[in-house]
């Protein structure tokens, strides 16, 4: 086809523009998170004394804050990565905020509880659920965010997929954290990353192929 002919076809197609990608992403992530939330509420749900814990348990509230402090920057990064003219460079460091915060929490925990309880607090009681339920709760946002990214135009498919994985695991982990009775930062640091690593690697693998355009 002659280039001039192609331009005529493109001009004839001028009306069919998709909604802005930032909006598509916000809706997709919102819908995915909502789906996970509904599934979560219908099955295991948050701890019955959720609201009380928020004001009485520092550790409980802290782990929720850590999870959100990972999910929120991941969302903004994914939003940027959906555009071709976005360069991630330094902004990826925002993802290090949550691990740094968790490290601080570990320091405070080690300083405040006797050392003979460290091991028990770290191993906890629910490590198996933690490792399996986080990926399950991440699934709906994961699929939604990858599809939304697909309609975008990332020039970093692998990174975009990986950060999409972090975002979906962040949503899944926030929900799971509100259910899990193990509140110690030691437990969070040992078991939660399993789900994150899984979703991140999955996102990178799928993204590197699926997000090309």
């Amino acid at each position, binding site marked *: *086809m002659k280039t001039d002919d192609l331009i005529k076809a493109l001009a004839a197609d001028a009306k069919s523009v998709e909604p802005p990608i930032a909006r598509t992403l916000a809706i997709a992530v919102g819908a995915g998170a909502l789906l996970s939330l509904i599934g979560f509420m219908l099955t295991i749900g948050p701890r019955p004394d959720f609201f009380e814990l928020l004001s009485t348990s520092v550790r409980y509230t802290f782990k929720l804050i850590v999870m959100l402090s990972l999910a929120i920057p991941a969302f903004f990064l994914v939003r940027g990565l959906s555009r*071709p003219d976005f360069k991630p460079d330094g902004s990826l460091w925002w993802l290090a905020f949550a691990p740094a915060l968790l490290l601080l929490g570990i320091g405070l925990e080690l300083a405040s509880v006797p050392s003979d309880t460290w091991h028990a607090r770290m191993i906890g009681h629910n490590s198996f659920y933690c490792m399996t339920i986080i990926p399950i709760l991440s699934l709906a946002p994961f699929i939604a965010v990858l599809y939304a990214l697909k309609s975008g135009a990332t020039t970093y498919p692998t990174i975009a997929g990986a950060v999409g994985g972090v975002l979906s695991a962040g949503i899944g982990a926030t929900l799971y954290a509100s259910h899990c009775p193990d509140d110690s930062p030691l437990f969070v640091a040992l078991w939660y990353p399993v789900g994150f690593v899984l979703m991140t690697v999955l996102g990178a693998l799928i993204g590197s192929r699926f997000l090309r*355009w």
Partner: protein
Amino acid sequence: MRRGFAGVGVARDDVEDVVQDVLLAIHLKRHTWDPAMPLGPWVLAIARNKMIDDLRRRGRRHEVAIDLTQFDIEGEDQQASIDAHDVARVLSRLSDRNRDIVRSISIDGHSAREVADRLGLTEVAVRVALHRSLKALADTYQEKVE
């Protein structure tokens, strides 16, 4: 862009392929441009991405552009044969009806309304078919990369 490619020794009709790929991408991905951001870097990012894809594909096939004289010839005949070649290759992936629609609008210059009347379709149906065909064309370029 054409100049950039000539610089690395890529044959003229292949360059035109990438130019078309870029135009299609700019068209189909225009919802990823944030109006609050400058347009230039966005266009360049798309062009750069497509050029890299193309060069990578070329590298993988160990293909070398040989005929440097092509860059000096602007003959009508040569252009016509390149175009005919491209029409066959790119449009062959579409269904008969969609190919007819794309041809009528692009090459023959008819409006969507006229094509709709001729084929007994609604104008909306023609526009949808055109849009799908353009996406299919973009995918054709993408498949060549993989």
